[in-house]
């Protein structure tokens, strides 16, 4: 009972939850090996999901939100210490970032980013293009209000629990400007609100929640 056509017959009942547990297991095992069926099942599930909109829409009570968030918080608190998000002031140190302090070394140590291939003035603010021999490319748009938006494509995907983080560097000290996950085409978009006093921006892959200091390899460094 694992012929391709027989499996295809089962996709609709599995998507609708009308298959027997055995049929469901057969299909789940098959779609792990067959991209075509996996894609079809995902589309059927998506159509089935839209049936939910057919149900009369009822506003959920606000207490439900509190309950769910409390439950999430309780699970975070019960995690082993190393997995907890860093708490402000827990250690009270801010490691200098030697590689960025010596920016020339940092750039040489990178995966080969060449900065400022071209400069232009399209739209709001100044735009600087960046590209790397590895095939990643993107733009930095310096906004009139002192901030900047960095957009890079073809960055490698990251594992679960990790995202690209933008840092601004002032006097050799990094400041987290926020995280962005990798979108389609390996695209990452991050922004810094204020570049005043900053000597460089850098993007590193980091565990989510790390805002103290970079730990990952710098895949983008933009001297200012």
């Amino acid at each position, binding site marked *: 009972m694992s012929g391709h056509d027989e499996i295809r017959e089962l996709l609709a009942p599995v998507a609708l*939850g009308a298959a027997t547990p055995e049929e469901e297991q057969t299909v789940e095992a098959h779609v792990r090996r067959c991209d075509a069926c996996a894609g079809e099942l995902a589309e059927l599930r998506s*159509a089935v999901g*839209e049936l939910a909109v057919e149900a009369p829409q009822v506003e*959920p009570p606000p207490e*439900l939100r509190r309950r769910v968030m409390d439950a999430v918080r309780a699970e975070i608190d019960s995690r082993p210490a190393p997995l907890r998000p860093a708490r402000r002031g827990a250690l009270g140190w801010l490691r200098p970032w030697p590689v960025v302090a010596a920016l020339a070394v940092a750039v040489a140590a990178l995966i080969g980013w060449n900065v400022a291939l071209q400069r232009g003035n399209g739209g709001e603010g100044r735009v600087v293009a960046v590209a790397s021999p590895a095939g990643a490319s993107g733009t930095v748009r310096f906004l009139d209000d002192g901030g900047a938006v960095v957009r890079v494509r073809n960055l490698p995907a990251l594992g*679960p629990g990790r995202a690209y983080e933008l840092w601004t560097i002032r006097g050799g000290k990094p400041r987290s400007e*926020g995280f962005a*996950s990798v979108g389609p085409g390996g695209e990452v978009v991050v922004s810094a609100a204020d570049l005043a006093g900053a000597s460089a921006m850098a993007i590193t892959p980091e565990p*989510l929640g790390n805002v103290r200091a970079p730990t990952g390899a710098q895949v983008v460094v933009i001297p200012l």
Partner: protein
Amino acid sequence: MARRRHREELARLADEDLLVLADRDQAAFEALYDRHVRVAYSLAIRLLGDRQAAEDLVQEAFLAVWRGSTKYSQARGSVRTWLLSIVHHRAIDRLRQSSAMDRRQEALEEEARAQRAQDTADTAIGRVEAQAVRSALAGVPSDQLEVIRLAYYGGLTQQEIAEQLSLPLGTVKSRMRLGLERMRRNLGGGEVATA
């Protein structure tokens, strides 16, 4: 202020990005919750016919999404589809476990009366969405729709549907497949298949 800026940034992210962040960033999870809680809760009520049970189920489903956020794969469909399928799957499990299938029937009938009152509480967005789905369903022959609804809302297996409608099992299977494929095409998911 930084917090507000953070929330504004989150509001621009796709569900899939929010889910990646959700494990470490509770605000990302809250944004995801706010986007989808209404449809998940409404589905749970429609299936279980009981507000308290629906609340418990929705809490369970969101926690399952949060716990599974690091294992999520886009091959399983969108985050919304995933969440709704968890709600649906678990609600159906509960219905099947309870021997009192007729109690559910009663609940559904009672809820159908309540629905008419709730319809007036639908927001404009809800109505537009519901209308899109209804028009997608309108293109599906009624005998196929009947089979789909019995499976989705009634939690019946193909065999049970065949018995209930006194139809050969093969007929139920083909109606379910043809109806669902038509729905997929009507909802705009068919281009991939024909490309």
